[in-house]
């Protein structure tokens, strides 16, 4: 009894020292931690927001802006950014081999989580997500800056892309046809999942079929976050996904419409629960347009060519 108490105290001391004490995972940092460590030269902060003008009018002091559509994706072919381009981008942002990179963004960190996934593919070390993102930082009335600071060029070196983190159409098809044991998590809204609508309100329909991949379970991304935008506790997340049969015993593939919201769930499953998960960035806009693949369309919505 006494021994275990000493052990617990030591563990608590160790986590307090590292500074991630209250976190569900050491892949997350709290707004409080970030505010305290902003002046640490080893900490580099990167914002990935989708709305224009958000970063410029006020960001976490010292942060660098990455633009999802042009910086983290290939603007011509449908692909993630190339290794060379990302390495240059990160070096320009002052990221060194031993830096701690903190990502955050608007819309509940969707695009920041996409950034974390892309960084992971290229082997960037010590990548953290600011728990609660821009929303929580603003809600807590923390400092914002509208100055863009030029960083001293960094020396980070990227690895070749790791295909284990990225699902392709064949992987998803294999799961749909029960030729693999990978389980699919569709994180879109129930209406999209059931085929009542093809795309969320206000978004152009880029797929010409409605529904979901056979075998997929529907856990909307928002189920993984608490009211303030932070991730739920590891225990809650474990229970949430286990209730849908996702318990980490088999590989998992996450998908959504274009792969960015599913990065958020990918992050929760990999970085908080430690499961083996690939993100399918082709998502419904690729699968729902593919010829001859099986689809479950509960609502029966028919695309009428417009």
């Amino acid at each position: 009894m006494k021994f275990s108490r000493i052990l617990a105290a030591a563990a608590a001391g160790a986590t307090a020292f590292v500074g991630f004490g209250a976190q569900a995972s050491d892949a997350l940092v709290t707004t409080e931690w970030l505010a305290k460590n902003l002046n640490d030269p080893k900490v580099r902060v990167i914002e990935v927001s989708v709305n224009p003008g958000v970063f410029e009018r006020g960001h976490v002091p010292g942060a660098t802006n990455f633009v999802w559509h042009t910086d983290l994706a290939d603007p011509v072919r449908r692909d993630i950014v190339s290794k060379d381009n990302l390495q240059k981008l990160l070096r320009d942002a002052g990221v060194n081999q031993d830096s701690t990179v903190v990502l955050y963004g608007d819309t509940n960190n969707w695009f920041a989580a996409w950034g974390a996934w892309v960084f992971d593919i290229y082997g960037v070390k010590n990548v953290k997500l600011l728990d609660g993102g821009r929303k929580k930082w603003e809600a807590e009335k923390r400092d914002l800056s509208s100055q863009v600071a030029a960083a001293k060029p960094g020396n980070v070196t990227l690895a070749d892309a790791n295909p284990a983190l990225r699902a392709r159409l064949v992987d998803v098809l294999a799961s749909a046809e029960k030729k693999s044991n990978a389980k699919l998590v569709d994180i879109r809204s129930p209406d999209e999942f059931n085929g009542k609508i093809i795309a969320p309100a206000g978004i152009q329909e880029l797929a010409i079929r409605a529904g979901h991949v056979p075998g997929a379970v529907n856990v909307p991304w928002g189920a993984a976050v608490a009211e303030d935008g932070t991730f739920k506790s590891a225990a809650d997340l474990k229970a949430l996904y286990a209730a849908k049969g996702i318990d980490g015993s088999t590989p998992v593939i996450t998908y959504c419409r274009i792969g960015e919201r599913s990065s958020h769930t990918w992050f929760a499953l990999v970085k908080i629960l430690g499961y083996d998960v690939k993100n399918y960035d082709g998502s419904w806009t690729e699968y729902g347009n593919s010829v001859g693949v099986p689809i479950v369309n509960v609502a029966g919505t028919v695309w009428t060519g417009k």
Partner: protein
Amino acid sequence: MTANTVTLSRSSVVAGLAAAALFFWLVLQLPERDALGRSLPLSMLLGGAFGVLLQRSRFCFYCIARDFFERRDPRGLLGIVVALAVGLLGTYAIFGAWMPVPSATRLPAEAHIGPVSWVLALGALVFGIGMTVSGSCISAHLYRLGEGSPTAPFALVGAAAGFALGFLSWNDLYLRAVQEAPVIWLPRFLGYGGSLALQLGVLALVALLLMRHRAPVEAAATSLFDAVFRRRWPAYFGGALVGALATVAYLRVGPLGVTAELGSWSRTAADGLGLLPKRLAGLDTFAGCATALKEALLSRNGVFVGGLILGALAAALVAGQFQPRLPTARDVVRGLAGGVLLGWGAMVALGCTVGVLLSGIFAGAASGWVFAIFCLLGVWLSSLAARRLFAAR
């Protein structure tokens, strides 16, 4: 209107204060932020200040142009030159903080830098003709709404219809020219220093040319109250304040513009009636007075324009310049016809004298200069034609 002809009416001052009180009460009712996190109350406050500025300095592009074309009175145009110089300096100061080196691939966030093609030139020309026909540009119709103008309501209705026509012609114009039109941001070619020097140099030259014409002498104000609340502010003073206000607006809310909300209402209505094509190609990808389908009732441009009208109303009431009268048939026809031209021009040019001419030039956009030249050309040609027409009768 001189100080002697208008007697200070206590009741109109009280009404002006009541309008101001209503304005501040409305500001307090607004939600704190819009979907992008911009402050809605701040947007309305800036709109109110803009309305007061426009009304007090009679910052009406058409009247200013006509003063010069017909009477060689350069003061109004000099006011615009001052506004452009101050706004340029302020906007460039923000650019320097947001984007220390002008990017070769990216544009400063939301700055009104538009595609340059004959569509822009044509839109500006038609807009200028619309100014002559209706007697004002869109921003001036908005502040004149606060002065009780009998034409302004019809001009704004006409403009909404003109916007709908613009949407209808958009896809064709986009494929003919806009899609491949260059988006020219001067700092990209000349750097911040070079492009600033060039534009300030052009403005200085224009100012020197204008100064060759002597301004008429006006009687001095009788009191400070008279100078501030009754008489028209000197145009250069109003211009400097417009440039300063534009800088604050860009830093905190977005570039100045007055047509986004009108265009959004028009697009939403026309779309709801099934008049519009399913997609307006490329329209939502340009920075400028974006006319997205309405999603939220209160938008930052909506509260800005609402504030503008109320601010102008309060200023006009205190000055004794709120003089509503019943519209004549001529007012209705001029307003509607001119408004249609204004709306069509503003739609295809992606903004008007405020959103493209002012905000564009502030941002070092070639599109702002092109709009300025063709809009003035439109006013000049149509005024000339109108004079010939009436002289012939």
